[in-house]
């Protein structure tokens, strides 16, 4: 069992929360599912897509079918990617409070302040990151960007696909696009946005690891397990805050267990 020694001397493992912490079910399975599908498809879309852009494999033998395969895999992944995005977007409306759409866009005063605080932290102007049950405002914004880029890739991708396919139905929905933006520029955009994903990816890994070390809240584990460890008072604040709003139901989403206690929930 992996142990981590905390600065305040207490010991904790990733199942049992340490002193003063409660274990909160933050990332429901659809969020995690969508997350990992997104991850895997983006990897394959990037590899196959980059090949389509500038073929880097020199095939051997008369039966080679490299470009054909790459395009096939790209399209397969593309639709998986599209599905994952859809699931996640749906969940933004029916999921728990931390998966809610407003977690991505700093709207409220509080969010804006948090955005600034996080900024100060990354700018080495404060000691520790602002603690969160969901994700901080800046991460939220980054994720928003991810969904934005996904939208662009899907739109441009489908437009390209409707040309490759020559299907009437598909071109009915996206056929207009090449007449607004020339096909060459659609490709350019489609290609450049890929690097946007790469940039996010690097930054994303870094923050995920950093924050899980700094906040010692099992964040890294959370995207696998769904659970995070949070100081009890923070959870209370969160609940109180939510109670203020009329959107009660999403509180069901939260399953917390008392200090030191064992989870009553079977993990998803």
């Amino acid at each position, binding site marked *: 069992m992996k142990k981590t020694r905390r600065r305040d001397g207490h010991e904790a493992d990733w199942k049992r929360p340490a002193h003063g912490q409660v274990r909160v079910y933050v990332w429901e399975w659809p969020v995690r599912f969508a997350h990992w599908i997104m991850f895997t498809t983006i990897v394959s879309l990037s590899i196959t897509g980059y090949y389509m852009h500038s073929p880097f494999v020199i095939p051997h033998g008369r039966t080679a079918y490299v470009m054909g395969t790459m395009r096939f895999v790209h399209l397969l992944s593309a639709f998986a990617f599209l599905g994952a995005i859809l699931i996640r977007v749906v969940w933004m409306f029916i999921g728990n409070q931390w998966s809610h759409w407003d977690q991505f866009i700093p709207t409220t005063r509080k969010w804006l302040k948090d955005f600034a605080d996080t900024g100060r932290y990354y700018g080495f102007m404060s000691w520790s990151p602002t603690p969160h049950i969901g994700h901080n405002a800046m991460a939220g914004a980054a994720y928003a960007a991810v969904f934005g880029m996904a939208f662009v890739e899907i739109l441009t991708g489908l437009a390209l696909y409707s040309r490759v396919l020559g299907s009437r139905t598909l071109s009915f929905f996206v056929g207009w696009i090449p007449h607004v933006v020339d096909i060459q520029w659609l490709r350019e955009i489609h290609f*450049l946005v890929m690097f946007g994903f790469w940039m996010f990816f690097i930054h994303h890994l870094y923050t995920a690891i950093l924050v899980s070390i700094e906040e010692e809240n099992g964040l890294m584990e959370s995207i696998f397990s769904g659970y995070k460890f949070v100081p009890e008072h923070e959870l209370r604040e969160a609940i109180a805050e939510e109670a203020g709003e009329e959107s009660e139901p999403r509180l069901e989403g939260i399953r917390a267990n008392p200090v030191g206690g064992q989870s009553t929930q079977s993990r998803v």
Partner: protein
Amino acid sequence: MRALRGTLPKALSIRGVSRREFVKFCNLMVATLALPPRYLSAVEKALTQSTRPVLVWLEFQDCAGNSESMLRTSNPTVAEFVLDLFSWEYHELIMAGAGKQAEEALERVVREHKGEYIAVVEGAIPTADGGVYCTIGGKTALEIAKHVCGSAAANIAVGACAWDGGLVRANPNPTGALGLQEAVPGLKNLINLGGCPHNPANTAAVLVHYLTFHDLPALDQYSRPLFAYGNIIHDQCERRAHYDAGRFVEEWGDEGHRKGYCLYKMGCKGPEATYNCPTVRWNDGTSWPVKAGHGCIACASHRFWDTKSPFYKRLPSVPGFGVDVTADEIGWVATGAVAAAMVAQVAGNMVRDKMRAKKAAEKASEPLDSRGA
């Protein structure tokens, strides 16, 4: 067997063409137009009628490449078009009359055949500075186009320039050039035959279609005939198997090039281009650019001079960067920059941790989970 009537059969018989060959020719027309076989007799009839429709061919900001291209048609030949199928009454490149007499010939057509004649337009129409960049007989191209095309039964814009302004309209479009449909909006029965130049095989088919049905074939959203502009070059290309396999020309004249590999990496725009070059080919089906060893430049695509160039790069250069900077380079550099920033962050955090640990030792009691110092 019905005897040959009318001028074309006569012309053909003069050149020793038998009725069988004549029917073969009609069949070919039906095929090019992708018409069902039952139209054969209609085509035959049209080709044997005795009074010929009047056609005028106008040249504006052009290079005469489309006129030259027309001289290369074989089914029918240009001689058959001019002597047997149409009365080709105005065409500066080849008409007998000049100056005043030429202008009168054109006027006569507009006057005596209002709403009956076909107007073919080649070249762009300048609209800047009152149209002074193209005048004929002292009148601007715009004036002439309005006058002549306005009262034609059908207008055929041949070549990129006449369709969308073509090369003449390419950035910075020094003369405010436009294609016919934009320079003279609202023309009825307009058909665009893009290409630089147009492939006369398609134009011939359109003209025969008009003779047969007094109407234009099915058009796409650019008013181009679907039979010629409906398919992507890339999907009809003889090098396509190499593309799918991933066998590409890497350098001009390399082994792959000699073996006929795909020209994708040399900038071929076939995947973006629609036209029927691979099937109809050029100059009596002799060849077409990709067969001859060079990439397609999508010369039949909308505004292709600006939208499809640079022709030796797969994708356009990103605005704001040098012409030689590729999208790859931009992407990689940007990604690299982010990576570097993250490395810097890691270093920064190590330092911060150390300092914070010291502070923590001073007042150990304070819960570190809450806001930092």
